[in-house]
């Protein structure tokens, strides 16, 4: 039993319950609750002519049916635009239930509440909705063409023109020794957590209070949204995120319509109501991400050094913009990566389409940004006949250039200033780890086996831990138990373990005594949420500060008791003692009792404490001015700006030139997230991210047809990888501490997914000699590409065909 656990691969405390079936996920709550189900639009764009519920009314077990007509007050208003931005000139959001028009397949039209989900679905089947279909817009190209519009009052389908620029890019391009331009596409994927969304609401009519459980990434914000929309006082609403079966971004959006409608029904009906999203609902009504069209023009000298970069991007934001233009901003600001770009301009047109809304999915615009920048590097190398690693090396920001100001404005409204990093180190470790210099030999060996082999790499810089803040509360109880809470939520990242490691180390207590709670507004009311790789950076540091506050107070009280100077004291194994004299000290639990002048001898701790209780100074109040009873402390961490993690991936693929199946034979990752709280957990995050990167590059896509119908709305045709499709990953770490926060940490949650599409596209291009300009790519697409006489070939393009 040690208390020095920071940085150790401590086994996860969550796993005890999660491996024995004792987790508590949303649908595990409230077996007696009524069940909600939704009638959702089968059309991508239509006017609702009539909703006929007649045939549904005699279904036994039906409790209530709600349509837009039943919404009152603020519930009848459009859903909020969470993150307004001056460049989001035409924000549009939907309603909790469709108000006259549906703009994507799956948009909720009616909510049914019944005694169980089976019956609720029976009722949905009997509700007849008559639609008058309208022209449909699918894909950025159709959106730009604007032959049809998603919103009548947005004739060009553009919700925002986002611009970031650091100088006169056109002049710089005119003056460049070399330039090249290209266009490429990325398709849609989605977070697709194994647990869908879900909401359970219980109204206490006597107490006039509402308790809501939601499978969310932002319980405090859901709480505020419910209070506002249902016009309740904030103190009457509590929201709890129970165990959450994965989020990856889709559960950060709030309020989802169901998060308002289910509590509304619970209040109206005076009964518990629960909605558990099923898989079909998740495909057609939860958020997607990634589709962009990118036009890149780059200027570079004869050595391959970039002199100017101009990126014009069209971003598909789906039918509504509740989450603003966060993804366009991130793509525009993260595109420059680890490189020196003397003059840069990014223009992102955020386009409306008649598809599910687009909000952050792990990586949030970064995979697309990395794809743009890294494929640019590949093309420069191809044009100049240089090694792709060498071209990158020549453009890297040098270690002595930090802090490095990219002169861009990040998602948090703060400047993009890289706080620290060692990109040379990354690249050196990566080329060694993957064996970059041995690729030629591997290629020859593969060709002798009748297979094509290629290698690719991609580097990234990831802004993590954006503010504005997170808070932490640490309290020592008379029992010796240490309660820790923070407002942001957990979806499997291991916060209970990582935060306990921080407190055990900071406070010098056994980790077994530490109990961590996240995402429960009853315990901590102020929080932002879990997204943008920010939990460890934000709550980790806040909790560390809170623990230090408790430590300081414990030492102060102990100093009195032990009649010693606080600076001579230490905490070891939960006991405060004079440095180097074990056995002479006072347990923290005793100090916890002493910290409260009101001390009934309810328990042993209190009885023990009395022996330490001095007479006190009768001339002073029992609780000193500025002090407070209890051995606890609340603190907040609020950074001036984000901290920038970095990494580099390399991949080697083998391709069967007969079936054009693509196999990843090696995947190497070098990762730098500053100080690691728990390397085991960090590696787990990398493994998971890489799997999603591979999925997004080779298997997953949301296949909408021109009519706005999602053609693969099931796990049969949306090809989330099984173990058989995910390669082994070799990982090396580099630790460049962040100077911005007390713990020196940077975010690690999203990194693994970012370079996958870029690196894999590069490797396939290297193996086939055909330009890969649209991702993801499947064997049939690769076959068609190889067959296409007009397909662009790379300089070393062999055009091998069998």
């Amino acid at each position, binding site marked *: 039993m040690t208390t020095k656990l920071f940085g150790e691969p401590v086994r996860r405390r969550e796993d005890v319950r999660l491996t024995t079936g004792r987790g508590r996920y949303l649908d595990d709550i409230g077996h007696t609750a009524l069940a909600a189900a939704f009638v959702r639009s089968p059309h991508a764009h239509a006017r609702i002519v009539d909703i006929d519920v007649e045939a549904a009314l005699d279904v036994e077990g039906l409790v209530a049916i709600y349509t837009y007509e039943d919404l009152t007050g603020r519930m009848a208003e459009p859903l909020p635009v969470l993150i307004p931005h001056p460049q989001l000139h035409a924000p549009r959001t939907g309603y909790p239930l469709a108000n006259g028009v549906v703009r994507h397949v799956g948009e909720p039209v009616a909510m049914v509440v019944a005694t169980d989900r089976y019956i609720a679905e029976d009722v949905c089947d009997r509700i007849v909705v008559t639609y008058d279909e309208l022209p449909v817009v699918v894909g950025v190209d159709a959106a730009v063409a604007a032959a049809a519009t998603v919103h009548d009052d947005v004739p060009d389908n553009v919700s925002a023109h986002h611009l970031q620029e650091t100088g006169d890019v056109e002049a710089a391009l005119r003056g460049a020794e070399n330039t090249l331009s290209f266009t490429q596409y990325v398709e849609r994927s989605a977070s697709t957590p194994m647990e869908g969304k879900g909401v359970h609401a219980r109204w206490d009519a006597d107490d006039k209070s509402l308790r809501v459980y939601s499978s969310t990434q932002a319980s405090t914000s859901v709480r505020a949204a419910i209070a506002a929309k249902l016009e309740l006082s904030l103190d009457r609403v509590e929201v709890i995120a129970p165990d959450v079966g994965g989020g990856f971004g889709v559960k950060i959006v709030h309020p989802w319509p169901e998060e308002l409608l289910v509590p509304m029904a619970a209040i109206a009906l005076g009964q518990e109501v629960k909605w558990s999203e099923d898989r079909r609902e998740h495909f057609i009504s939860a958020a997607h991400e990634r589709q962009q069209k990118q036009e890149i023009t780059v200027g570079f000298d004869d050595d391959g050094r970039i002199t100017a970069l101009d990126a014009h991007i069209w971003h598909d934001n789906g039918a509504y913009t509740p989450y603003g233009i966060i993804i366009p901003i991130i793509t525009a600001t993260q595109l420059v990566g680890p490189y020196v770009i003397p003059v840069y301009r990014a223009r992102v047109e955020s386009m409306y389409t008649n598809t599910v809304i687009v909000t952050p999915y792990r990586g949030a615009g970064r995979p697309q940004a990395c794809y743009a920048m890294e494929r640019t590097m590949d093309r420069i190398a191809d044009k100049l006949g240089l090694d792709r690693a060498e071209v990158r090396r020549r453009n890297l920001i040098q270690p002595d250039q930090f802090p490095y100001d990219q002169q861009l404005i990040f998602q948090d409204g703060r400047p993009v200033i890289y706080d620290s990093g060692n990109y040379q180190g990354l690249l050196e470790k990566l080329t060694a780890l993957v064996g970059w210099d041995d690729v030629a030999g591997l290629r020859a060996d593969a060709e002798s086996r009748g297979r094509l082999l290629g290698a690719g790499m991609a580097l990234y810089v990831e802004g993590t831990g954006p503010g504005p803040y997170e808070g932490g509360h640490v309290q020592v109880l008379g029992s010796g138990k240490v309660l820790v809470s923070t407002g942001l939520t957990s979806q499997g990242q291991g916060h209970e373990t990582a935060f306990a490691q921080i407190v055990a180390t900071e406070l010098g207590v056994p980790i077994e005594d530490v109990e961590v709670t996240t995402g429960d507004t009853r315990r901590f009311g102020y929080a932002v949420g879990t997204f943008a790789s920010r939990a460890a950076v934000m709550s980790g540091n806040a909790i560390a500060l809170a623990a230090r506050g408790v430590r300081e107070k414990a030492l102060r009280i102990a100093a009195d008791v032990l009649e010693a100077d606080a600076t001579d004291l230490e905490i070891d194994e939960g006991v405060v003692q004079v440095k180097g004299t074990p056995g002479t000290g006072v347990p923290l639990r005793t100090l916890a009792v002493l910290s409260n002048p009101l001390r009934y001898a309810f328990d042993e701790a209190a009885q023990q404490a009395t022996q330490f209780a001095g007479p006190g100074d009768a001339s002073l109040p029992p609780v000193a001015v500025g002090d407070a009873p209890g051995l606890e402390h609340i603190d907040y961490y609020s950074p001036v700006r984000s901290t920038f993690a970095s990494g580099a991936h390399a991949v080697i693929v083998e391709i069967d030139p007969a*079936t054009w199946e693509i196999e990843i034979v090696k995947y190497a990752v070098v990762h730098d997230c500053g100080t690691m709280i728990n390397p085991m957990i960090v590696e787990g995050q990398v493994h998971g991210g890489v799997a999603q990167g591979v999925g997004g590059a080779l298997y997953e896509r949301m*296949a909408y047809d021109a009519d706005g119908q999602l053609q693969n709305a099931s796990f049969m045709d949306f*090809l989330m990888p099984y173990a058989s499709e995910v390669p082994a990953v070799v990982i090396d770490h580099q630790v460049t501490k962040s100077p911005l926060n007390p713990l020196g940490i940077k975010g690690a949650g999203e990194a693994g997914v970012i370079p996958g599409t870029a690196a894999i596209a590069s490797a396939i291009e290297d193996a086939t000699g055909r330009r890969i300009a649209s991702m993801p790519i499947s*064997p*049939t697409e690769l076959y068609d590409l190889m*067959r296409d006489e007009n397909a662009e070939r790379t300089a070393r393009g062999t055009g091998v065909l069998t």
Partner: protein
Amino acid sequence: MKPAPFRYADPGTLDEALAVLSHEGAGAKVLAGGQSLLPLLSMRLAAPTTLVDINRVPGLDTVEATGDGVRVGALVRHNALLRDVAAARVQPLLARATANVAHPAIRNRGTTVGSIAHADPSGEMTSVLALTDGSVTVATPSGTSDVGWRDLFVGPLETSLHGPAVVTSAFFPALPARSGTAFAEVARRKGDYAVCGAAVVLTLDDSRRVSSVRAAYLSVGLVPEVHDLTDAVAGKPVDSADWAAAGALARGLVEPDSDLHASADYRRHLVGVLTERTLAAAAAEAGTRR
């Protein structure tokens, strides 16, 4: 995603099952493994009025392997057939194809005969039944009869069976002497239904020359397709036959459709590739079988 209401019966005998099917009429559906039917019910794409669960009917769960071939009962799970050594000896294609059916947990419940009665041209076992020139035994209130595969498969998920009927077994003729087989498919993910698949039977004459080549393909048509490719390699010595020629012949015989996962051209191309590869494997085996 919860099933619409239906009625349920689990008869204890075949006669009872047929009686219930007759009584319940056209809306009644036989439930065996249910690994295809249950998703259909939960997605509410199918809404039979009655499910007649034959899992309690005795005598339908045996695999009989004789010199003539392998008879597989209606309740034999994929995994049971996969593990049946005697069956694999008589007709090696059975295990080779079954190994490609979904994943183990599905194979523990799904049945071979059920997948055949389901008449899915992407199903491994429908193609094996076709390639081996097999048949099914069908019980109806008016008696029992055998139906050959050509008469059985009418279209995708469509058989010639109508009214109250239970497929009680499927019969796969034995692999002839001096013959070899192979099965291969290309799927997007391991365990997915194939983008394209091929099963072949190749037979040699006494002088180890190719005397017959037949192939069946998955996911290239609306019903299982069997093509005779003998002409491409007839009389050629097994060691020097040009399997690519057979692949080329096969490419010209199929008319696949495009879908989300493969273009028609790619499928046709794969027909050639898989034909060539499976024939090479089958030839190696044929060379070793007396």
